[in-house]
């Protein structure tokens, strides 16, 4: 018999009702005859899909600190348990042979990466941020503005203004970070004086 998933649910639902009047096997017995689910005893955590902007809810099943299964969250009124191929493959983002596991560094002119410690990489980056900021920081800059002259007509003039910005560093990304991280990010970048800040919304 060619059954769709919906038909199957209808039939099993029907079985449960029938069992209450003693016409079919107990639902429990039917359960016991099926294979044990991989997710039995696993911890379930909900997440939101990292791909498009629909906001599908996904359940992540973990055992011993490992992701053992991911599937659509039936509770979500957005996706009601369904997922597209990308959302359905979340499991492979967790169990992925290609992911970066440590910081890498490439020196000027080098032909290969070198694995480095976080502490070293972060210190080096902080040093470069400071050096470039100190070198390229503009306390003031000249802007063209329109001002009313003595005759009441608007004339374009050049004036020096306080700008307090770092012109030597640019930043792009990240539309996949959490809101709270985005907030921290813009806070940090603007405290450094960056204005060349862009991300995926522009393209």
């Amino acid at each position, binding site marked *: 018999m060619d059954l769709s998933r919906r038909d199957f649910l209808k039939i099993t639902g029907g079985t449960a009702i029938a069992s209450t009047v003693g016409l079919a096997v107990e639902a429990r017995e039917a359960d016991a005859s099926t294979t044990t689910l991989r997710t039995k005893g696993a911890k379930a955590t909900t997440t939101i899909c990292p791909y498009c902007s629909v906001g599908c809810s996904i359940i992540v099943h973990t055992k011993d600190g490992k992701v053992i299964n991911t599937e659509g969250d039936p509770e979500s009124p957005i996706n009601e348990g369904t997922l597209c191929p990308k959302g359905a493959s979340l499991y492979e983002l967790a169990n992925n042979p290609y992911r970066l596991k440590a910081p890498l560094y490439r020196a000027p002119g080098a032909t290969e990466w070198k694995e480095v410690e976080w502490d070293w990489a972060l210190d080096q*980056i902080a040093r470069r941020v400071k050096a470039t900021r100190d070198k390229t920081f503009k306390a003031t800059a000249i802007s063209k503005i329109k001002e009313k002259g003595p005759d009441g007509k608007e004339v374009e003039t050049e004036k020096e203004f306080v700008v307090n910005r770092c012109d030597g560093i640019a930043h*792009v990304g990240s539309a996949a970070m959490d809101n709270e991280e985005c907030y921290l990010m813009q806070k940090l970048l603007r405290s450094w004086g960056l204005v060349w800040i862009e991300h995926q919304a522009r393209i």
Partner: protein
Amino acid sequence: MGGNPAANHPVSFKWIMKAKERGAKMIVVDPRFTQSAAKADVYAQIRSGTDIAFLGGMIKYIIDNNLYFREYVVNYTDAPFLVNDDFKMPGELDGLFSGYDEKTRKYDKATWTFQLDEKGLPKRDNTLKDPRCVFQLLKKHYSRYTLDKVSAVTGTPKEKLIEVYKLYGSTGKPNRVGTELYAMGWTQHTVGTQNIRAMAIIQLLLGNIGMPGGGMNALRGESNVQGSTDYGLLFHILPGYNPTPTASLVNLQAYIDKFTPKTKEPRSVNWLSNRPKYITSYLKALYGDKATKSNDFCYSYLPKLDEGMNASWLNLFDSMYKGKFEGFFAWGQNPACSGANANKTRKALARLKWMVNVNLWENETSTFWKGPGMDPKEIQTEVFLLPCAASFEKEGSITNSSRLAQWRYKAVEPLGKAMPDAEIINELYFRVKRLYQKEGGKFPEPIIHLTWNYGEKDKDGKIKHIDIHAVAKEINGYYLEDIYDTKVTPPKLIGKEGELINGFPNLQADGTTSCGNWLYCGSYAHVDGKVVNKLAKRGKDDPTGLGLYPNWAWSWPLNRKIIYNRASVDQKGNPWDPNRPLLKWNPTKENPATGKPGMWEGDVPDGPAPPLADEKAGKLPFIMKPLGVASLFGPGLADGPFPEHYEPLECPLQENPFSKKHRINPTIKLFYSKEGGLPEDIFLSCDVRYPYVCSTYRVTEHWQTGVMTRHTPWLLELQPQVFVEISRELAAEKNIKNGDKVIVSSARGKIWAIANVTDRLKPIKVMNSTIHQVGLPYHYGWKFPVDGSGGDSANILTPTIGDPNTMIPESKAFMVNIEKA
């Protein structure tokens, strides 16, 4: 139009199909017969880049056939307002609006104004007959968009145009509604903003804005591109869409004066008159006790743009190419593949002194120095590649396309030594600050005084781990003192010092509240004495029956599900469609906030004021607009108050059929012209070497530049390599068979792709000649798969040109050639 939800937002399509089951009709207009088109009731093929012609024809059809929603248009839009007598339109000025300056390629908007009465309000004619009223000007402007002309330009047959116009125009009745779902198919054009405005005009004419099942819906491309925009990770905005300060705004008052709109319309809510509260509370969130009234709340700490400075994407990489930056962060993004004209971007990266790339994988940006045409020994750029945690290895919220912010939880520890982005940010914050504290340097105050109270500190004073809830609370905002409503006697306590603020109406402009992002104020708040993270709510009740689910997570602003929802009711507050009430004014029910009878029921209303019919207190529905009504006439845009058709930068026509003198949008910034420019930015229009119209797009199985999905074996197996879709007719002409390897080239570069010969694309008749359109996905890159079997980015082909309002690149219409490899 402008989107393909079946392929790119598949789960959203589930609900479109559900609507169809209930009798809804779906129209798809696309150059390609997409998966969405396959399920459409009406499909119309269009030449890429001619949406304004298509929609202009629809505006004409709606007006000529009296299909517009008159009561809505007269009362809720600017249609009756009289426009300045000196304002001229492209029909009169051969493609231009009045005020154009050829030298600067900009408009002087002096004539793009309304005629004012003695009160300073726009003069109006509610009969819509005055030849200078917006409605009549709109009618006149689009009278040029005849069926013949539109058909000749778009390539869509006349009978198809009529079929679409008639069906969509039928939603102008109070009990019918139409919605528009668009994506990059509309934004990635040199007329991108005006594409969207053209449809917004249609939606307003038909009374489809503010309605349940209506609206203009941007299908955003990233899981949190909405949130990251809300949080101001763009050059022109701070969190909550407060504009980035510019040089001439020398103090906070000057900033407030410039960006706080004023109105003389007594019935207008003019919500942005609250700007001073939002910017001051933001500065208090950044600088805490250091931000005082006497030091202008540390306004001088915010970096300023020069007047007229545009630091957007294309300019950013142009500046990088010209060697203007030493340092660069590509944080969770792969610009070597994602931006237009990828070869230029890749060369630009080689001119940096240092770069930091934060990602889950090695990618074409981190490893640009090993890329095609690069000699690593010659490249002096230092690169730090930092591994970050995946979405389920940390905790926080993201905001979807409906402004719905949902909380997600940590399921496992980050892989290997990977760290959550928040922790990397925390480390860099601390280390840079420590250097400035120890060594001094240029203007260290903004760095040293920045608030950073997100958890327990270690012995050096570093926050050990960011408490993401503390960040969410700072965003929501706090009362910094006991705040009283002094308008009532005795003054009523609004909030106590140290408590979380329950909504942005309670923010203050005097420094007594802090709030990191006013739009999210109320998301993490005190409810009945308890602190509630509303972003984590999972209630499934749906009291309106419209699928609003008010207790599933939380939407900005104030959990309002449909913005401008007061436009869904008539002037008495009764829903236009009584069978689907989104909002309804109940004149007898006592409002707990005021203690008086009369309150709204349904969605969270756009403000508590009574409906418009209340002569004393009634308010107009478009609360963000200073005049309280929606704008059919849009003087805020760079390229005209009404959308006008211009050809893409690269197109198959020698001239614009609508205006001979101006083939392309006259206000776009040209990176390359007769006068000069970088050879990298070359473009060739109507050139026999590049005869085919090309568009980039996405497939379901991949995402963006494919860094995540190419590294996901299940997905790569489904879509292993770049392909180019071409029609059977073009394939026959070029002797190309399905599966052949071909070279796709543009004026800027070339890539190989596998030919996908298909019925989904058809030759199209444009201005009496046959035009071929082709298309290819842009998800691939040379770095992975490592054997190069995926091919490279389609953005190697796309031009350096952007929309004049947004600077979003034109990746949806450019010219290419195809040859067998």
